[in-house]
């Protein structure tokens, strides 16, 4: 009953005309940056942070949150229609979504993405409301040893789910790990591979690397063939899903939502990991396994539900403990501190209007997003049908602004350009860039936590197997690794990936 009262307060806050307006601005902006490749929610929120100072705390956080989950919707549109992830968490959606669009099933693919996201968003909102405080305790159990084992699982999983050659996926991960080594060593502060350039002291800029490899690399490839990029379908029809389709997506949406919700709560997780994990899980569980990679609707439903669920549940550790599980949450914490709110357990009790208002706004925002993304899909497609010679300079300009705005550094812009060439080379050589990015993100965390766990245990390596959570995660990784390496599963995997 208390929950209903709290949610009542939340909806009263979220539905006030002023907050509703900012919620709308947030999700509309989020969809736009999601649709446009290269510009992600991190860069957008970072750029908008100064604008929020003049707003009341609730409105500004509602808007910033809207950008984040709004981008999860928008990203899928680009992924499905032009095989270019608009947002990093839509990378896997492109695999089957684009194939569906090629077969003239862009409408169902888009509808699946939007409805799957909406369902996941609704579930995640409820989850956030009921379970935020107790679930945050689970995150607290995660020490360095558990983090290390989680990262191992993440790396193993990213090899397992990479399409194409295992060797190439492994190579990409190792390359990502190596790139992640650049910068100051956290333990001692020693500079590694920085060539005495202070610009590299904090490591390579993630935004520059990801925009370069994914955004610019893709643009370069597209520029090769003048006419190959075209939006598959100019007028999307058949947005209604058939009964058969609904039946096929029910399971994947449910599983994706569940997996995404869990991975979102875990620090280091969030939308991207959730979508990757959901896709690989679905590929193993689905009865339509053979269709994966060729336009399986399950391959759209699962990752799209997972990324939206993950995006929303990653608010749980942030709102209840003040701990950021990903860079977007770190920015949200910054926005709260600027507004004079100390993120932590006291937010729920001291700022009930803010806490519940934000939760309620997420559901309202998800509803707005379905309206924005289905009936108004034409508008977003128009955005994508802008001719290349107009669109590319604009995207590149946005990318440059995004890369520059992280540190106000031109160095990062050049870095992005360099990684654009790297990304292009990788595409030409048939290497998938996604594992590289995962290696880059997970590598430093893996090292940091390994060394920290050893430091805290005073050099006792058994700490990884004596902690039950850590042991469990390592066993799962081992199982996954064995499964991938087993000859018969391996041949099946290759079968599944070959198109």
């Amino acid at each position, binding site marked *: 009953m208390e929950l209903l009262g709290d949610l009542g307060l939340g909806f009263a806050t979220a539905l006030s005309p002023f907050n509703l307006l900012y919620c709308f601005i947030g999700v509309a902006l989020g969809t736009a940056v999601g649709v446009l490749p290269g510009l992600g929610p991190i860069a957008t929120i*970072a750029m908008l*942070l*100064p604008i929020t*100072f003049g707003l009341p705390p609730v409105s500004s956080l509602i808007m910033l949150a809207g950008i984040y989950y709004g981008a999860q919707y928008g990203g899928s549109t680009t992924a499905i229609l032009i095989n270019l992830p608009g947002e990093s968490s839509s990378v896997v959606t492109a695999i089957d979504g684009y194939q569906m669009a090629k077969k003239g099933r862009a409408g169902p693919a888009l509808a699946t993405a939007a409805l799957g996201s909406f369902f996941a968003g609704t579930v995640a909102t409820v989850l956030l409301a009921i379970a935020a405080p107790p679930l945050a305790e689970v*995150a*607290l*159990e*995660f*020490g*360095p040893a558990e983090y290390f084992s989680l990262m191992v699982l993440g790396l193993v999983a990213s090899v397992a789910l990479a399409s194409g050659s295992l060797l190439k996926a492994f190579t990409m991960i190792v390359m990502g790990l190596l790139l992640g080594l650049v910068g*100051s060593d*956290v*333990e*001692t*502060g*020693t*500079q590694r591979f920085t060539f*005495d350039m*202070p*610009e590299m*002291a*904090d490591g390579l800029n993630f935004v520059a690397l990801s925009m370069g490899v994914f955004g610019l690399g893709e643009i370069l490839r597209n520029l090769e063939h003048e006419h190959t990029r075209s939006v598959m379908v100019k007028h999307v029809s058949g947005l209604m899903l058939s009964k058969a389709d609904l039946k096929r997506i029910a399971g994947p949406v449910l599983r994706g939502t569940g997996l995404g919700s869990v991975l979102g709560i875990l*620090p280091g997780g969030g939308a991207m990991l959730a979508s990757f994990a959901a896709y690989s899980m679905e590929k193993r569980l689905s009865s339509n396994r053979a269709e994966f990679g060729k336009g399986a609707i399950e391959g759209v439903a699962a990752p799209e539900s997972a990324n939206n669920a993950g995006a929303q549940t990653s608010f749980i550790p942030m709102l209840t*403990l*003040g*701990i*950021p599980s990903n860079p977007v949450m*770190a*920015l949200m*914490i*910054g*926005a709260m*501190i*600027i507004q*004079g709110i*100390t*993120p*932590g*357990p*006291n*937010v729920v009790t001291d700022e009930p209007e803010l806490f519940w208002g934000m939760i309620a706004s997420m559901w309202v925002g998800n509803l707005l997003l379905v309206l924005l993304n289905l009936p108004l899909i034409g508008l977003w497609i128009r955005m994508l049908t802008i001719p290349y010679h107009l669109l590319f300079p604009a995207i590149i300009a946005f990318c440059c602004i995004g890369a520059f705005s992280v*540190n*106000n*550094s031109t160095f990062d812009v050049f870095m992005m350009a360099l990684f654009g060439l790297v990304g292009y080379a990788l595409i030409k050589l048939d290497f998938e860039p996604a594992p590289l990015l995962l290696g880059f993100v997970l590598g430093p965390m893996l090292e*940091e936590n390994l060394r*920290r766990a050893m*430091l*805290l245990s*005073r050099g006792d390596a058994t700490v990884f197997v004596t902690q039950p959570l850590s042991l469990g995660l390592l066993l799962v990784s081992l199982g996954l690794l064995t499964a991938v390496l087993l000859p018969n599963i391996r041949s099946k995997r290759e079968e599944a990936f070959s198109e």
Partner: protein
Amino acid sequence: MLRKKSTFIAAAAVVASVFASPVLAQTYPNKTIRLLVPYAAGGGTDAIARVVAQGITAQLGQQVVVENNGSAGGNLATQQAAKSDPDGYTMLMANQGPMVVNPHLFKNVKIDPLTAFDPVTLIAEAPLVVVVPENSHITSVKQLVEEAAKAPGKMTYGSAGNGSASHLATLLLAETANLDMVHAPYKGAGPAITDLLGGRLDFMVTTIPSVFGFIDSGKLKPLAVTTSHRTKRLPDLPTIAESGWPNYQAAAWYGFAVPKGTPPEIIKTLRDATVAAINSPEVVPRLAIEGAEPVGNTPEEFAAFMKQESARWAEVIKKAGIGLD
């Protein structure tokens, strides 16, 4: 014709140069002032910078724009500010780290912040707080020190990073009380606090806003503040000095500096506007949220303060052997 034109240009140039200097000084500021902040957007320093920038904007009638660059421990922003024109349109948020710690910590700091800048004023000082997990049996700094002394190398403390204010304040305590403890550096205070909450670290010295919520809810127990006097934010909390180490004193501080050679009247304008801003009813409570108390001393006092801080931390860093590279 040509002659006429060049005469005109020459005349214009003379007129311009006659007007230029005195008019500029009188009408300063007549355009946007940029404030370089050597920390990433969203942190405690950034919050203070933005609040005070708004206050100065109200005082001077010109926009003060904050530019963040937290790379390389803030060294990049410091270098950039040092290289800017000394015309009063570039200010640097001059903090402990980039001004007096980094030169002793990093090998490749290309400037000496103490000579490359003219100080404006010390804006505010904020205490750090010593915290332990709620289930820790330790209840005072005295007890913490006694236990650490009894078992050398057993106690572990977290910090926001190598050479951070949180690390240095703990090092100072360790040196003052002659303790041998293990340091676990993190990337920022957030993840270190998680491990402290989970009981994996024994204690931590950190900024008040980073743990205020946990102190409030009882998840962390505060033991003492690091400044020489108590803080208004946690008035019941003793200082480390009170707890038995009268010479112990450490604080996070925030100041403004401008590139060397900025005209004194411009420095005075900036200082007056800053002092008025940090004592205004809009800014005081927002500083208090950060646990910071306004100072607003003279440029000379600020210069002397930085010199003294630099010497002090140089010794701590040298003794602990934590210099980088």
